[in-house]
């Protein structure tokens, strides 16, 4: 069986459809690690954690921030149902930076009531948002 040349990628959040179109490659942050998907992948269902989704069209690679969700992979189609998915251009760097500092100060505080898991997740979200946003910024700079 000939392999399909492209994957039809759909990224949807409860609020809106973030992306829909043919791509050459997708990487998603599954709960057990990053997962790269090329056309013709075996059917797969997985859960997504916090991290970055990236997809490639030709030589062009786009990054999105993603936090929790599910992914359904079929040989010619990938559907990402994310709780949150933000394009790199949509991310507010200042706010993410503040969130990171807040989370880290909470984690390093000696307060016994600190909810560590929550703090760690918040920090992870902020750091991951920043990563995505910075990648985007770097590309905007003149070479």
């Amino acid at each position, binding site marked *: 069986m000939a392999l399909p040349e492209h994957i039809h990628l*759909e990224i949807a959040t*409860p609020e809106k*459809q973030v992306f829909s179109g043919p791509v050459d490659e997708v990487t998603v942050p599954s709960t057990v690690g990053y997962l790269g998907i090329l056309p013709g992948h075996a*059917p797969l269902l997985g859960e997504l954690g916090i991290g970055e989704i990236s997809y490639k069209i030709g030589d062009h690679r786009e990054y999105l921030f993603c936090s929790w969700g*599910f992914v359904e992979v079929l040989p010619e189609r990938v559907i990402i149902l994310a709780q949150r998915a933000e394009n790199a251009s949509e991310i507010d760097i200042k706010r993410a930076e503040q969130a990171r500092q807040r989370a880290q100060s909470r984690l390093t505080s000696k307060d016994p009531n600190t909810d560590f898991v929550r703090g760690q997740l918040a920090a992870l979200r902020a750091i991951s948002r920043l990563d995505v946003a910075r990648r985007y910024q770097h590309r905007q700079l003149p070479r």
Partner: protein
Amino acid sequence: MPNLRDIRRRIRSAKNIQQITRAMKFVSAARLRRAQERVVAARPYARQMLSVLNSLATRVPEHAHPLLAQRGDQKIELVVITADKGLCGAYNTNILKEAIGFLAGHSDKSVELNILGKRARDFFRRRAFSVRHEAISVLSTLSFADAAAIAADIIQEFEKEKKDQVLLVYNEFKSVVQQRVVVEPLLPIQRLKDLGAADRIDYLYDEPPERIFNNLLPRHVETQIFRALLEAAAAEHGARMTAMDAATRNATEMIENLTLFANKVRQAGITRELIEIVSGASST
């Protein structure tokens, strides 16, 4: 003899009201368009979610999850979604009528209310029904986080077996002029469609399928509530737009009639004065 000044005053106040209703109509039209876009934008997620759930349901045993448990219908929760504001025709009345009808039809069961919207809150406050949870201004600033919070509360209530069934009453958005109140079962989640063996896909899992399934079900409930809220919001704006359009037209008609009347009164006054002058002149 009606007073001309009184009639003029009534014309002026009708014009003022007309200006307001016309403005409200345009505001509602703009909000309706936005609300409609959100309904459409939320569709892909809900559709894909359902297709993934359906394909998973075939490989996970029934009753595997507390949200699927069929326990009968002794303890029911009714989620009533209305607007916060009035001035939208029979929109709120229809929903409340439907809710009261439901309560009357299930008076032998224990029904508790979960109220979303100021109109329903004010309505049920004066009546003897047990209200478990109420929230206002949900529809005006609607986010998925709100829906998720409402869902979490309902899911908890259901999982503790305090409720056997949860139903939604809201106004479905069919089109701008079409209003339809629906009573929709939310929990337990309806038995999912069993796809034929031909449509079944053998997935790889990087997690046990049960785990994915169990994480998906609460999301599904959240999505259902979010969708209902979005539709209710769109329907509210649609209803208000139609109501305000009718009000504007009624005002136009009223102004026309009053103007005609005012002119007649004015003419009658002039005629009377003329007669007085003429009869006065001829008598001398």
